[in-house]
């Protein structure tokens, strides 16, 4: 006999018939009828009219029938509250049944009947069942408390059920413990302030014991609950970790992921130098890899979580790149996630392999996947500088395939590559322009327009290209319109003569014919700029852009921390905090990783450690409804800070006071171009002072030079002792001090990098802003090993002078951006001009004479060098060491006249006449140069060399 026939009744008057059957005397017939009712209910028919008849069947000793009736009750009780009362008696009676299965069934069903009138009748039976002798009844009753709480929270509290539930945590049966923990965790979530889950070392110990004994599901409840606990100290957290690690070998992936969550959270508290810490890191990788051989849906959940774990602790999986390679028959959602992780793990060591794979993927069938693969190639280029060239050529190959979406995607990423490596790959522009007509997606069109505008001076027909876009201006998307407007203004500023008409046209299109306020505003601003001050316009529109950083899609650190605390859950799948997708008060609690005891972090934020029990910590994470608050926060609190919003500004102030002298010395350096200032963002209070204080800095630095004792090299190039360039507190723990030297004709930047943070720093890179003499790193910053906490490493960076040139103020100012795995940091420093004095700077006498006469006297500057106790020959020797060459010496009336020449790397000659009077410690120096700005700095070099 099969049950499927129940699904097929479609007769009219069916309800009527059923009614008759339900009231039949024959048990079998009754049961048949109830089955039919349930089948109708399943397919969505309304059978509530049969309520009294079905409830009448409840009084039976046939358990199967009873269960069916209960199922019906749960569905319809709410719609027939008055009739539902009829069922109460049966429940009360069943709760006293000698058969524990029946008792449990009654208490389980009771909680599912959401009728207020009934709930109060159920308290007494529930109380009894919570103390039942049979564990099966107790574990069911524990869940029933959570059900009741969902219906009437007040009632549960008043009846003291919560305390009974808490007692069940100490129950002898592991499953009762697990269900009690689950129920309490859920109730606690809706009462963030209550001290319900009062976790202390004793209860934790009980939970850890039950963990070994209960079902796989129970283990998940317990592990998820443990994750909310904050251990007192690192010893406690180590001992918990030790007892949780065996779970990593469980066959149930959810147990593994929940164990990973506990470990990821608690290991934060362990000292990094502990042996156990390293062991734990090693233990985490294999189970995570094993998760990838689970069913595809679980793989997806695992991959979303691995994505978070890789961002938090890249070291765990850095050698496991291969397991994330996409398999041909992976479902698309697994493929896309694997791709994401591949990019995150890409490094110089494995980039060749990754690129080969990505190229393979770019020829697959699924459009989204192909697009993402192309985008990934671009991201590799930006992330791993050494691979940039190969990535670009791979992208060019892909453009040659002429597959429309591949071409468009490639152009979008090439734009990013240009933003990262300006002036390096412009040779490909011609190829890109060939594909102009095939672009139909806004993002690709916008990217292409940006490229044309940015490199307008190198594209002969830039005006024609942009004009072609202009024809359908109003049909374009806003993104394209804005980009087109900017690009044409750039073009105009670069080639003003030929493009006046074009710019007029676009400005009027944007301002007069458009309804879009953003477009109009931008149009007006350009218009006004161009009409009032074209020079200023040039400075604004063509200003140096900050380089894009490699990982633009990293999850914001506070959110990442919260998500790490939600490993395994939906939040970790969506990469959103629970408040973003859970309604009501549930799950809005923000979780955070406890800091290490005694670490700097804990000193900063006294409110940690209460995350489970106290009020939810202030929301730093932008929740959806909180946009306005977030905007307001923006000025006060830098988004990178993990402390609540009020504190940072206060701390800034404090830091400023403390760092007083140091800050005013170095603070000035931060000024720089406005764009850099904005990028810095972290020190709003320092900014104004810094800008104003700039002139003073030179002097201050000079003083430093004075002080720096006479170590140096006696005959060679004089090296200034290292000075602090970047204090640790401005760079999240990275401290940089350094100096410059010229050795064997090569300029070198000698730096000491110190890690004063708690975590390892890796992936260092350096870049200079344009500067007066085109100094640029000649190679990558060679920091081969990761920089562990409290470690200092000395590096020498060779510099070239072939970089882009822009006049700086002061002239010898150098703005530097240093990047590591944590962030990008900016500082500026000043180099002694003598760095640029080249070895072949000795001029022919005749030429010297002629040049000296040739340079107008207005360009001559005179200086006094005081307190030099050297005779003229010694001085001349000393200066020669720094490539200041004495061409001739004349003695007139006891005065030695030294004629000297200097050549700078950019072939500017500086001529000098130094007068030394025997017995007088003060020298007189006259400097003549076609670029008089340098005189001051040349004088400083003299002063520096002679006095050391």
């Amino acid at each position: 006999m099969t049950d499927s026939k129940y699904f097929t009744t479609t007769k009219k008057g069916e309800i009527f018939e059923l009614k008759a059957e339900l009231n039949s005397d024959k048990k079998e017939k009754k049961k048949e009828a109830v089955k039919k009712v349930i089948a109708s209910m399943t397919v969505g028919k309304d059978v509530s009219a049969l309520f009294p008849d079905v409830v009448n069947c409840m009084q039976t000793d046939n358990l199967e029938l009873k269960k069916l009736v209960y199922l019906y009750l749960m569905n319809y009780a709410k719609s027939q509250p008055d009739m539902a009362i009829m069922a109460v008696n049966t429940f009360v009676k069943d709760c006293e049944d000698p058969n524990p299965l029946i008792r449990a069934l009654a208490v389980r069903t009771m909680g599912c009947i959401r009728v207020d009138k009934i709930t109060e009748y159920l308290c007494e039976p529930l109380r009894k069942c919570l103390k039942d002798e049979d564990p099966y009844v107790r574990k069911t009753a524990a869940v029933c408390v959570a059900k009741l709480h969902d219906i009437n929270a007040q009632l549960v509290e008043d009846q003291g059920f919560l305390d009974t539930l808490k007692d069940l945590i100490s129950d002898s049966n592991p499953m009762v413990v697990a269900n009690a923990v689950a129920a309490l965790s859920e109730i606690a979530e809706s009462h963030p302030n209550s001290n319900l889950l009062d976790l202390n070392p004793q209860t934790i110990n009980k939970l850890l014991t039950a963990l070994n004994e209960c079902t796989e599901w129970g283990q998940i409840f317990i592990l998820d609950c443990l994750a909310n606990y904050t251990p007192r100290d690192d010893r406690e957290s180590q001992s918990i970790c030790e007892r949780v690690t065996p779970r990593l070998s469980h066959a149930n992936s959810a147990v593994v992921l929940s164990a990973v969550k506990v470990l990821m959270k608690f290991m934060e508290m362990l000292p990094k130098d502990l042996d156990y810490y390293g062991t734990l890191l090693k233990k985490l990788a294999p189970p995570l890899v094993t998760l990838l051989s689970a069913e595809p849906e679980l793989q997806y959940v695992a991959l979303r979580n691995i994505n978070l774990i890789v961002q938090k602790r890249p070291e765990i999986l850095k050698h496991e790149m291969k397991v994330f390679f996409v398999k041909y028959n992976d479902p698309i959602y697994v493929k896309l996630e694997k791709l994401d992780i591949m990019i995150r793990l890409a490094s110089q060591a494995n980039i060749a392999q990754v690129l080969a794979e990505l190229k393979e993927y770019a020829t697959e069938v699924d459009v989204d996947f192909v697009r993402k693969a192309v985008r990934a190639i671009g991201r590799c280029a930006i992330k791993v500088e050494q691979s940039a060239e190969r990535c670009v050529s791979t992208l060019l190959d892909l453009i040659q395939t002429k597959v429309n979406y591949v071409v468009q995607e490639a152009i979008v990423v090439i734009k990013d590559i240009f933003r990262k490596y300006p002036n390096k790959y412009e040779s490909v522009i011609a190829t890109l322009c060939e594909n102009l007509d095939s672009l139909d997606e806004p993002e690709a069109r916008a990217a292409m327009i940006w490229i044309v505008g940015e490199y307008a001076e190198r594209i002969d027909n830039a005006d024609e290209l942009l004009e072609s876009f202009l024809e359908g201006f109003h049909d374009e998307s806003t993104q394209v319109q804005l980009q087109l407007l900017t690009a044409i203004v750039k073009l105009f500023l670069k080639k003003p003569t030929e493009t006046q008409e074009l710019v007029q046209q676009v400005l009027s299109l944007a301002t007069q014919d458009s309804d879009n306020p953003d477009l109009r505003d931008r149009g007006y601003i350009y218009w006004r700029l161009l009409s009032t001050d074209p020079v200023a316009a040039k400075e604004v529109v063509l200003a140096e852009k900050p380089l894009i950083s490699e990982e633009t899609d990293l999850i914001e650190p506070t959110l990442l921390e919260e998500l790490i605390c939600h490993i395994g859950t939906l939040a970790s799948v969506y990469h959103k905090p629970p408040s973003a997708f859970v309604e009501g008060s549930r799950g809005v609690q923000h979780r955070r990783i406890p800091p290490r005891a005694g670490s700097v972090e804990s000193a900063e934020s006294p409110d940690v450690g209460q995350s489970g029990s106290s009020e939810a910590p202030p929301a730093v994470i932008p929740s959806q409804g909180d946009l306005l608050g977030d905007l307001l926060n923006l000025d006060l609190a830098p988004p990178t800070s993990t402390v609540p919003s009020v504190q940072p500004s206060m701390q800034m102030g404090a830091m400023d006071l403390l760092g007083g002298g140091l800050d005013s010395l170095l603070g000035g350096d931060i000024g720089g171009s406005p764009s850099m200032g904005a990028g810095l963002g972290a020190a709003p209070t320092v900014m104004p002072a810094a800008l104003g204080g700039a002139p003073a800095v030179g002097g201050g630095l000079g003083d430093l030079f004075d002080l720096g004792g006479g170590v140096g090299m006696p005959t060679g190039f004089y090296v200034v002792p290292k000075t602090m360039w970047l204090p640790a507190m401005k760079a999240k723990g990275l401290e940089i001090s350094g100096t410059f030297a010229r050795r064997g004709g090569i300029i070198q930047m000698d730096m000491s990098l110190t890690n004063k943070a708690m975590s390892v720093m890796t992936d260092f890179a350096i870049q200079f802003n344009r500067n007066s003499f085109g100094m640029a790193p000649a190679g990558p910053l060679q920091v081969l090993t990761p920089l562990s906490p409290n470690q200092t490493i000395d590096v020498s960076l060779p510099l070239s002078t072939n970089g882009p040139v822009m006049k700086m103020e002061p002239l010898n100012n150098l703005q530097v951006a240093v990047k590591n795995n944590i962030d990008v940091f900016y500082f500026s420093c000043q180099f002694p001009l003598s760095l640029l004095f080249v070895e072949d700077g000795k001029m022919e006498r005749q030429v010297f004479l002629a040049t000296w006469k040739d340079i107008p006297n207005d360009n001559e500057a005179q200086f006094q060098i005081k307190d030099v106790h050297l005779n003229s020959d010694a001085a001349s020797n000393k200066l020669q060491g720094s490539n200041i060459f004495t061409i001739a010496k004349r003695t007139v009336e006891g005065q030695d006249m030294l004629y000297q020449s200097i050549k700078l790397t950019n072939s500017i000659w500086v001529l000098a006449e130094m007068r030394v009077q025997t017995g007088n410690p003060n020298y007189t120096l006259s400097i003549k140069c076609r670029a008089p700005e340098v005189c001051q700095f040349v004088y400083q070099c003299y002063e520096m060399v002679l006095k050391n």
Partner: protein
Amino acid sequence: MIGGLFIYNHKGEVLISRVYRDDIGRNAVDAFRVNVIHARQQVRSPVTNIARTSFFHVKRSNIWLAAVTKQNVNAAMVFEFLYKMCDVMTAYFGKISEENIKNNFVLIYELLDEILDFGYPQNSETGALKTFITQQGIKGQTKEEQSQITSQVTGQIGWRREGIKYRRNELFLDVLESVNLLMSPQGQVLSAHVSGRVVMKSYLSGMPECKFGMNDKIVIDKQGKGGTTDEAAGKSSGKQSIAIDDCTFHQCVRLSKFDSERSISFIPPDGEYELMRYRTTKDIILPFRVIPLVREVGRTKLEVKVVIKSNFKPSLLAQKIEVRIPTPLNTSGVQVICMKGKAKYKASENAIVWKIKRMAGMKESQISAEIELLPTNDKKKWARPPISMNFEVPFAPSGLKVRYLKVFESKLNYSDHDVIKWVRYIGRSGIYETRC
């Protein structure tokens, strides 16, 4: 927690609908049907959020199982539960099909009531469930029987019931491995790994305590160091030991004991179950080597020669060997000659399929084919997909060996020696590819 559980047929008609939480309404059933089952596009994610309600789904043949929630549930747990649900249903009534589900809907509701309470998964071991969810009623049970059931369902050993008796105590161990390979045309191994499972069928009386031992490198090395026994034996077994990258166990295995002593001890469920899974990547025995040779003769002809060599003891026989040689899309005709087995060009699959029933170790065989191509003006070159292979061999390519499986049952009078034990090794090809 899980708010509701729905089962649909391929048309999106509801077969089972069980709601556990008040926040899940009837409209959730329809939302999933409209947005996922009837969606025009291929499914892009196993987790879907529709109007702040999250749907987790898995598919078995053409049946959809969906779990619904409005909370931040443990997503891994939900999927594990759905798989478990499928296992339980299969154990009760066989294949998951529309017909079977309709025929057993009352049973399914009863199961759903038992294994999911207020959305919290409860004991879902079929062994335990079958003792009291029977569709026959539980009228005849004595009080003792009832409490035995409840203590088993909630107890520490939820997967096994007391009082099992067999006249003959017997157990079967199957070591099932799938070996995966990606090889370059020059014969260089690009990646290779074995994923293995130890499946056990136990027919043992009482509550036997079992201990499983294999040639795990860590264990053998430890013994070699600690033991003062025969050094030569230690050495030779040390050679045969294998490095296991990672392993996971059935919930009956005492994990803390494995973590501390690396010993595998457990009380097994009755009947068939999967004791452990493992992965290895080192020193894998690759049963077959494929040597491809592809030559393009002009624009309209390809010559393919593939040699396969078996690389294991000559006394062993590999079975079900199949070599799949991809052909270009513009293939117009194929001529094949093979020394052994049968080969056919399958136009619909764009491949030459070469099948050999049996092949002994240390042998080699060869196929050569001439492929005629239609001239095309497609600029894109043929991507040359890898040659793949399927086979089955009677040994474990990882080198894993079962050293012992000891059975102790102190209460009943049978000893380890009385148990009849069978061990079988089967190595199958996973993704076994050679680029050409």
